């Protein structure tokens, strides 16, 4: 019985030690609940990079000033493996065990929703940088918005409307086909919202096809879509699926343009998709062409540090950290309730993804979206959609 006891005690010691470590100078600990392993590690990696960049910026300038004292920011990043139960466990751990002042993340809606439940019940502020599912900030039983959970981006409802309006009014399209990942939270929601909104504006959805996460072969679905003769194909997929679909579609002789969601906005998509995506449109949180000096500086700093251009995840994480720090600064004290109140009252925050402001009682920010087009190997801005 010695061997098992040894292993068990080692495990306990490790568990205990993991909670220790108190730094000497005044520090504010912020939690980052992200997907570093599992099915979307690039989501977590980008998010962490963006967040870390902001934290480093603040720390290099001497720290965050709260009520006259300068604090260093410590970012505790924890991996939720893109799984709902792990995301919940990490949220618990960050809030109760590691006593973070605020939590940023998770990104994917499937993880953000359970984490949001926990943050709300433990009354710790959570900012979901990327989750567009309306349910993340909603209290399911009462139907009212949550108090402690905020969002750093627009919701799927707004996005679907923006895209449907653009397709009907600007592109003058009346027939659209949709292909989406049935097993994935966000694309599923976006696909269905787009369908209802597009039909509400008088369009017709000619084909509604699905695949499941991890699939690579869409030839069967695309053949069906081609047969239904749409004018555009709505593809609310993550940027690693889109190039495959585009390529297979082009190979089958489907020449219509594609329409995408905010999940497309990683510059990787151009590298992976190439010519097949030329002429396609998508809805995004921001455009590098907006030209705010803050945004330009961010892009330069990110590229210099991490060797590749930032994607929407990095930018949104950067802004979420910015929102967090701004709320702490204006709260003037390190108290979760005070920080929450300060965040809900921020009149205007200029982030790299655009202008934010929160209306009292609404945890979803008032933000505009832009429609971008993939042209000449890069994203070019086409239109702005305001709420």
């Amino acid at each position, binding site marked *: 019985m010695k061997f098992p006891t040894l292993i068990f005690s080692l495990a306990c010691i490790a568990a205990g030690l993991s909670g220790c470590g108190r730094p000497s100078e005044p520090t504010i600990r912020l939690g980052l609940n992200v997907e570093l392993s599992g099915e979307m590690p690039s989501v977590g990696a980008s998010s962490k990079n963006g967040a870390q960049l902001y934290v480093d910026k603040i720390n290099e300038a001497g720290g965050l000033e709260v009520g006259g004292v300068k604090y260093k920011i410590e970012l505790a990043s924890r991996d939720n493996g893109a799984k709902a139960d792990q995301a919940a466990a990490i949220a618990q751990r960050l809030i109760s065990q590691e006593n973070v002042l605020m939590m940023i993340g998770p990104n994917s809606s499937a993880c953000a929703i359970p984490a949001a439940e926990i943050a709300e019940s433990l009354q710790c502020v959570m900012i979901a940088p990327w989750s567009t599912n309306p349910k993340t900030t909603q209290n399911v039983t009462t139907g009212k918005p949550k108090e402690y959970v905020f969002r750093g981006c627009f919701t799927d409802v707004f996005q679907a409307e923006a895209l449907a309006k653009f397709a009907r009014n600007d592109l003058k399209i009346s027939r659209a086909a949709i292909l989406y990942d049935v097993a994935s939270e966000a694309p599923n929601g976006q696909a269905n919202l787009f369908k209802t909104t597009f039909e509400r504006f008088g369009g017709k959805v000619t084909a509604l096809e699905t695949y499941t996460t991890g699939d*690579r072969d869409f030839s069967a679905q695309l053949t069906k879509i081609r047969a239904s003769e749409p004018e555009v194909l709505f593809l609310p997929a993550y940027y690693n699926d889109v190039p495959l679909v585009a390529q297979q579609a082009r190979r089958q002789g489907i020449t219509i343009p594609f329409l995408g969601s905010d999940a497309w906005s990683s510059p990787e998509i151009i590298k992976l998709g190439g010519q097949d995506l030329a002429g396609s449109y998508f809805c995004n949180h921001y455009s590098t062409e907006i030209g705010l000096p803050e945004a330009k500086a961010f892009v330069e700093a990110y590229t210099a540090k991490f060797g590749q251009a930032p994607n929407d995840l990095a930018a949104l994480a950067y802004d979420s950290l910015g929102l967090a720090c701004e709320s702490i600064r204006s709260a003037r004290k390190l108290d979760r309730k005070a920080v929450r109140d300060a965040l809900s009252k921020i009149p205007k925050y200029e982030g790299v993804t655009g202008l934010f402001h929160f209306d009292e009682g609404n945890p979803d920010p008032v933000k505009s979206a832009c429609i971008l087009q993939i042209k000449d190997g890069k994203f070019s801005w086409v239109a702005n959609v305001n709420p």
Partner: protein
Amino acid sequence: MEYFAQQFINAVQLGSIYALIALGYAMVYGVLSMINFAHGDVFMLGAFACLLLTRWVTPPFPVVLVAAMGATAIVGILIERLAYRPLRGAPKASAIITALSCGLVIQNTTLSLSPYPQPMPAILANTTHQVAGVSISSIQIEIIVISIGLMVGLDLLIRRTFFGISMRAISFDHTSVPLMGVPVNRIISLTFAIGAALGGAAGLLYGLAYPVVGATMGMLVGWKAFVAAVVGGIGNIRGAVLGGFILGLVEIMSVAVLPSTYRDLIAYSLLLVILIFKPYGLLGSAPNQKV
């Protein structure tokens, strides 16, 4: 009509890749009666080997294919030596768990080193041909041809060479074979090497067909190919090929005819039904049990 012809071509292409992977499973099961769960990740390594090879230079396609197969063969031998050989006497389930752990280690190491999906370089030119209203791409044709070529090669190897005969002998009765002068350990290593090489080739071809590779691509495809191998009759080389094509056909055709959300449901239910009626697979036979 064209619609179904198009879908049929899609099915053959997908099926040939599944068949190549299923072969690796069948070979290892044949000699060791063990399911090599690390095979799916060896498949993934084939695609990544190609990425590594083409990072700085662009060698011609045959060179890349041979190099990728060689690299994965070495990985296969390593896995066999480090993880399976010590467990030859242990209960089979433990060996399976070891295989599973090996696979997870490979997958997650690759994931940690490269979390972002990578584009596959286009080392094979891709042109689309229109034949009687059906679009076929040159890559599809090349994949089908190469897969069939490898399968035929394997069949010849099994039936005409000393190695092949030894392999079949070991799968038939592994206790008396060493007494006949057959170097069992070497044959087993070679079996793993060839199985892994086929898996690596499949990975490379898969990467060419669907040019975005990520470290998790091995897991799901690996399990599916395993199911295909079992449906065909595990341990049976021809069964594995048959199973692979059936799976490809079922997956594509269920989407062709029914709403695509039901694809997994249909495919797996059908496989379940096949197994209920033919519990040892289509080409397999009930093993003789001695009491």
